[in-house]
Every structure is written in structure tokens, then in C-alpha cells.
């Protein structure tokens, strides 16, 4: 038997305490399109970054055509015929296509013969694979789809035999996706090997001949695409692990207090990320939003908490309209109305890591009594309060004067949670409450959220952890591509059903 073009054996990689890849074994055969599928955070990108030489594995070996190689940098990988197209393109915006492609491989000090040669070679490549790119166009004038082609062309020009594509369709329109797939198929027919990283089942079924599934840093299965189905893959992806059920009383649903009507929201790049969303949350209820990261949950939470502008539609709190495209309340005004927000990304938004713990414990409430009086901060009150809540929420170490970045992720999250729950909000928006949090803290955080619900708060919980959604929510909606694609009472609903909805196939 011919040895596989790429073979990984027992690859391990950890970042701090997080093990991103555990004993990964993978064989990729020449001339195939091999899919690697898994949820966000399953370790797909880490694994491929190791193959591309961006990261070094802690242990394990990589063989190309049966020969063991040592990849210390992307340059080593390029020499060994591995090319990678990243999710975020690595192009110089104000250079032309040609200049970008030869960057680092110019071969001469004053452009002349070799540049001409490169141009001819590239034109040849473009023709072979039907790329249809103007080599003298400036990158900034090109659409995303074309930029991606430039990246592919760059890898091919540098002699890539194995081409790794990391979530290549995330930024493309459906038409561009079709074009990309055409190119990938023609690459395959020319004998190139393609590794496609994705979380979209449709693409796997469409394009690949073999597929490997990853879950929580482990490789959970390899199969030929023709021998499997979307349902089966979804099951492998999500896992059948036992759910961590939280003790939860029967729901005591009150009246609807938070209502979202036909909400649309754009992101910073002016792309509509939330599309015509309607939802209602009652007092005493946890509404879970399931979905793969990047399907609009972030923008939805930001719009609901007053951080992001509403493009169209409206938001109502206690029957009063609080935001539409013309007016919106800023986060502070919303806090006063009883809406609290635990943001998805605590480092970027929830905390100021250079501040001391006590300064973060009052963040956003710092101008309220008793923490400050006529603009002067009352340090005695703040310290007293900090000691109290750090005790209550078991924040370790219990030192209000310690700089926040010195706390562990779980303890930082407890700082945010204590701050946002302390005022007994009527509506609580929670994003990824347990991301990067150790198991002990997860249980604690879940219990606090359940307590809030039992006290009558309306809670909106967005999480990419399906287990978390299933164990906490009373009702679940699934977001895909900015839209709500399904709503279920959390009774007898299976992770498989949700997985399919999340992948946009059901």
C-alpha cells in the first residue's frame, strides 16, 4: 500500500492547562479532499496550525510521504509542500496580486527577469485551474472571494501539494462558495490533496471523500464520506456524553417581561449578522440560544445590552420600548432599568484586566451610591463590599487589591457574575458563562443562574456548549446565519436534533 501523503501520529498540544489536542492520529491520502469537522474549540485549527508549522506540538510525529519531518516554522512547511489558507487572509492590502504572491520569494533585488518569469508561471496556473484573476489588480479592490483565490494561488505557486483550508466558506456568499468548490475539485483532479476544516456538514457531504471528526481536542472517528450521513456526523460531532444535569425546580413562569421584535443588527463591517429575530422571555425562565459561534449570537447580545446599534426592529422591556433604530438606551440606562449583562468575552469586554479586583467589582456601577458620592469614590465602602462579595462568590484569592489579570479565568468570571447579579436584575443576558472556566466554578456559576431564575429573573443564555444549554434552559432557540432556525421546549429534545439545527441542515 502507498503511504499516505500526510500522517500524524499521537500529536499532543496544550496551551497552559487547556489541552487542545490529545493523541491525535490522522492519515490523509494523496489526491483526496479530506474533511475535518468538529464544533468550535474542538481543536481543528490548532491541529492544522501544527501541520503548517505555526505551533509546535508537545509530542507526536508528522510524516510526509512516509518520511518523518520536523516543522519548526511555516517556511519548513512550505518547503515540504504544505500550504494553508487561513480564515483571516494574510495579504498586503495595497499590494497587487502579483506582489503579494511573490512576497518573500522575489529572488532578485531589482525586479526584471524573475518577476516576468513569475508572472508567466502564475498566468499558466490561473489557466490550469480557471482562476480568472487579474495579477495586476490591487488586493483592496478585490472581493473576499477573489482574495481567497489569491491565497490559494499563492500556496500553489510556492509548490503546495497539500492545501489546508481553514473554514474557507465562513466569509463567502453562496455563489462564491460554488466557485470555490469548483476550484477545489479541479485541484483534486490535478492530483493535489486538500484538507478542509469546517463545522458545516453540508460542505463535508458535498465535497469530501473522507472525513475525520474531532471533539474536545480528540479525534473521535474517521470514515469515508459515502459511508456516513449528516445525522451520523452530527452525532459524532456533538457527542453522546452524559449531560451534566443541574438540579432545577419546575419552572414557575411569570409574565413576559422582555420582548424582541423583528430585530436586525449589523456588525462593524456593516454585514447584517442578526436577521429579523423575534423572541420573548418570561419572568422565571431561562431561554437558551444554541448555535455555532459566529452565527449572530454575539451581535444579538450586544444589541440587547445597548452596546450595538439596532438596524431595524425593536426591543421591549416591561412593555416599554427601549430600543429601535432611532433611539437606544446605553448600557448604563439599561442597568438602571434592571437589565444586567455578562458578556461573552470577559477579557475584551467584561473586565479591565489591569484594574484591581475591587475596581472591577464595581465596574459599571461605580457612579452609584454607596460606591461613589458626588463623583468621589468611597474606597472604604468599595473595599467592604468587595470583601463581602468575594467571600460570597468564593473568589480566590480573596484579595480586592490584586490586579485582575492575576486571577484565574473562573475567578475572573465570578467577579463579573457577582457584579452583575448583585443588583438582582430583572433581565439577565449571559454569554458563554463558563468558557475557559474550571469544572468546580462551572457548577457554582450554573447554580447561581438557576437561583436567579427561581427568584423570577428572565434570563437569556447564549452558549456554544450544548450541554450547558440543555442543562440550564427551559426553552431553547437555535441560531444559524443570524436567524432563529428552531425553537424547542427543553423536554425530550436531543442534542442530535439541536446539532442538526445548529449546522443548518434540518
Amino acid at each position, binding site marked *: 500500500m502507498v503511504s499516505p501523503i500526510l500522517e500524524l501520529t499521537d500529536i499532543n498540544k496544550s496551551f497552559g492547562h487547556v489541552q487542545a489536542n490529545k493523541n491525535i492520529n490522522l492519515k490523509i491520502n494523496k489526491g483526496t479532499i479530506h474533511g475535518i469537522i468538529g464544533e468550535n474549540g474542538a481543536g481543528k485549527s490548532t491541529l492544522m496550525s501544527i501541520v503548517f508549522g505555526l505551533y509546535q506540538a508537545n509530542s507526536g510525529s508528522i510524516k510526509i510521504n512516509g518520511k518523518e519531518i520536523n516543522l519548526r516554522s511555516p517556511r519548513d512547511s512550505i518547503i515540504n509542500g504544505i500550504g494553508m489558507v487561513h480564515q483571516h487572509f494574510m495579504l498586503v492590502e495595497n499590494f497587487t496580486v502579483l506582489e503579494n504572491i511573490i512576497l518573500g520569494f522575489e529572488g532578485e533585488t531589482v525586479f526584471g527577469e524573475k518577476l516576468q518569469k513569475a508572472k508567466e508561471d502564475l498566468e499558466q496556473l490561473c489557466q490550469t485551474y480557471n482562476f480568472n484573476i487579474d495579477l495586476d489588480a490591487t488586493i483592496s479592490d478585490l472581493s473576499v472571494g477573489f482574495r481567497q483565490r489569491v491565497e490559494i494561488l499563492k500556496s500553489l505557486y510556492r509548490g503546495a501539494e497539500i492545501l489546508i483550508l481553514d473554514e474557507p466558506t465562513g466569509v463567502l456568499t453562496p455563489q462564491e462558495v460554488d466557485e470555490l468548490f469548483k476550484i477545489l475539485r479541479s485541484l483534486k483532479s490535478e492530483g493535489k490533496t486538500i484538507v478542509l476544516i469546517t463545522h458545516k456538514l453540508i460542505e463535508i457531504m458535498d465535497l469530501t471523500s473522507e472525513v475525520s471528526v474531532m471533539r474536545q481536542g480528540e479525534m473521535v472517528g474517521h470514515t469515508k464520506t459515502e459511508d456516513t450521513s449528516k445525522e451520523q456526523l452530527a452525532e459524532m460531532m456533538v457527542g453522546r456524553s452524559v449531560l451534566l444535569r443541574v438540579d432545577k425546580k419546575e419552572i414557575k413562569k411569570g409574565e413576559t417581561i422582555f420582548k424582541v421584535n423583528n430585530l436586525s443588527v449589523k456588525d462593524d463591517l456593516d454585514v447584517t449578522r442578526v436577521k429579523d429575530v423575534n423572541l420573548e422571555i418570561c419572568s422565571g425562565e431561562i431561554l437558551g440560544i444554541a448555535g455555532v459561534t459566529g452565527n449572530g449570537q454575539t451581535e444579538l447580545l450586544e444589541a440587547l445590552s445597548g452596546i450595538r446599534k439596532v438596524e431595524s426592529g425593536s426591543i421591549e422591556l416591561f412593555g416599554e420600548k427601549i430600543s429601535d433604530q432611532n433611539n437606544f438606551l446605553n448600557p*448604563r440606562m439599561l442597568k438602571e432599568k434592571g437589565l444586567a449583562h455578562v458578556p461573552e468575552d470577559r477579557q475584551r469586554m467584561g473586565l*479591565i484586566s489591569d484594574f484591581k479586583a475591587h475596581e472591577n467589582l464595581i*465596574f459599571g456601577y461605580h457612579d452609584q451610591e454607596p460606591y461613589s458620592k458626588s463623583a468621589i469614590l468611597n474606597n472604604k465602602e468599595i473595599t467592604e463590599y468587595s470583601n463581602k462579595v468575594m467571600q460570597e462568590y468564593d473568589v480566590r484569592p480573596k484579595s480586592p487589591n490584586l490586579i485582575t489579570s492575576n486571577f484565574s479565568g473562573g475567578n475572573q468570571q465570578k467577579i463579573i457574575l457577582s457584579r452583575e447579579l448583585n443588583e438582582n436584575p430583572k433581565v439577565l443576558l449571559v454569554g458563554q458563562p463558563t468558557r475557559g472556566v474550571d469544572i468546580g466554578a462551572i457548577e457554582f456559576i450554573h447554580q447561581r443562574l438557576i437561583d436567579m431564575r427561581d427568584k423570577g429573573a428572565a434570563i437569556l443564555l447564549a452558549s456554544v456548549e450544548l450541554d450547558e444549554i440543555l442543562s440550564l434552559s427551559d426553552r431553547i432557540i437555535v441560531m444559524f446565519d443570524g436567524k432563529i432556525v428552531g425553537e424547542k421546549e427543553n423536554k425530550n429534545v436531543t442534542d442530535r436534533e439541536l446539532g442538526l439545527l445548529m449546522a443548518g441542515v434540518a
Partner: protein
Amino acid sequence: MSNIVVDKSKVPWWVSNVIVPLVNLTLALLVSGLFVFIAGENPIEAVKLIIYGSFGYIQGFAYTLYYTTNFIFTGLAFAVAFHCRLFNIGGEGQAYIGGLGVFLVAINLSFLPVPIVWLLAIFGAFLFGAAWAYIPAYLQSKRGSHVVITTIMFNFIASSLMIFLLVDVIRDTNQMAPHTVKLPEEIWLPSFEAFSGILGIKIRYSPLNLTFLLAIASLFFVWFLVWKTKWGYEMRAVGHNTQAAIYAGISPHKNIIIAMCISGGLAGLLGVNEILGVSHKIQAGFPAGYGFTGIAVALMGRNHPIGILPAAFLFGILYQGGSEVTFEMPNITRYMFVAVQGLIILFSGALENLFRPQIESFFVRRLNREVNA
């Protein structure tokens, strides 16, 4: 060298805030000594002259404190903006315009009781300096024009504007030089020699005046503002993490403007020292580079009033002692001391982290050994 990883939480505060700056300063002075040596003079003698010039006699010491006053204002100005992560390079222009504020208030309201004129003149200095900083602040917060670029340009604009005013509008028309008339003597701020005269000590002229106390008060003001009020808290929040500030309902726009205006106002106070205290008229180019040196003062003082005071004093010593040296040593020119300043900026600003890892890990290891022993 950069491979040394130091657990920051284990580094005692005095190592990073006292030992490291001192080491950097010593290095700067050693290299400066080398320059003096190359110039053909004895570095040890030069140091002696600096110390004598700035401490050795009462008039010299008064000069040192006069320079310190200016450096406190401009150092604080830079520090306040920096806490909102704004590099206000425009202290020079803000000080210049601040001087205009002092003069206009003092000359037009000189009929009022003297202490009230002083207060209003101080207010005028702050207001004019703040107004000059407001424009770059507005452009930064609303239009995203980088404050470094705009404040540099505003230094030039301030300079041109003031020359225009001094030549064509507010010049003392009895003469040709670009300066105004003198303020009436009764509203001049009392000088140091006037005070010592009351105590029966007779000393020779020095520019030190009551503004020194205003500078000390400003140190307290900035400390209180930045660490004890919600405004300072919000400014720091915006500076450290704008995203988080927005999440907490703190407006970055508002805080950029507040921080820059307070910064500009503090720079403007330099005009009080120069115009109400020393020359009593506006002269072309009176800020004389204090605005720029203030950046170095703030960097050395780690943007904290407790650090800015000694840093400003150090630069005061260098200015006063330096002029003594240039007086006594013909081979050392005034520009040599500009170079010394440059070296201090280089070592305590740009190369701040050159030896930090080594020093910190040295102390961390040592202290751990003591704990384990």
C-alpha cells in the same frame, strides 16, 4: 535576553518603580559622563558643578525649583492624558496659548482685588490651555484623527498664531520686539526673594515665585482626580480597555475630551509661572521646550504624581546645574545638556524595558531564597 519570564505578581512594587528607574537614570548619566569626557572635560568636575549649581547656594536652588515648577505642570499634563491612553504631545502649544489666557485676564481685569485677579488668571490659563487641547480631542473622538499627529500640528499652529498676535495685535507698540507690555506691578505674583525679604533674609533675584505652590497643589489635584474620583476611574477604564468601557456604559468620546482638556489646562498653567510670576509679559517662544521635556518627566515619573515630583526636580537640577556647567566649562555647550536630556528620555522611556527583566528576576529570585531559607 527577552527569554526571561518574570511572574509580575511576585515583583515587589519598589523594584519596578524605584530600582528600575534608578538603574536607567544611572546608565543615562554614565553615558552622559562619557560625552563630557570626549568633549575634553572632567565628568566628575561636571557633576560637582551640577550639584553646586543647583544646591550649592540659595539663588541656585531657587532657580532649580523654578524649573521644577514648569516641569511639574507639563509632566502632569502628559500623565493625565496618558491615563486615558492619549499621547498628548501638544503641551508646548497648550502652554503657549495658556499664557495668552493669563495675560488677557490679568491685563483686562487688573482693576479687581489682587487675589481675585490671580485666581481668574489661573482659571484663564487653564481654560485657554484646555480649549487648545479640545480641538485635537474632538478630532480624535469624533473623527479618529490621531491625537499625536494633531497635537504636534497644533504646536506649530499655536506658535504661528502667537507670533501673529505678538507682532500685529498685542505687541507693546512702543518698541519693535515681539512681546507685550508688562502687567501692572501690583498684580505680579510674589517672588521668592520678596518672601525671604519679609523674613529678613536678603537674597539676589531668582524667578522662583508663588506658582511653585500651585504646582504642588496640582500634584495633589491630579492624584485625587485620577485615583479618587469616578472621572479618573472612567478615564482609566477608557484608556485600558475601550470595549469594556462601552460595555459598562462609559462614553469614550466624553472621556477623551475630558482627559485632553484637563491635560491641556495643566500645560496652560505653565503660563501662570512664566507670565504672572516671572516675565510679566508674553514673549515670543516663552514655553521654550518645557512642553516636550514634560513628556520625559511623565515617563520617568511613571505617570504618577509621586514619581513626577522627583522627575521634575531632577530635570530642574539638570537645567540649573547644566547652565552652571556651560558657564564654567567652555567645551560644554548648552546643547550638550539637551543631549543629556535626550539620553535620559532614551534610557527611561524608549529603553525602559532593557534591563527590567534582569533586575526583576534578580530580585524575585533573591526574595524567594530569603522566604525559603
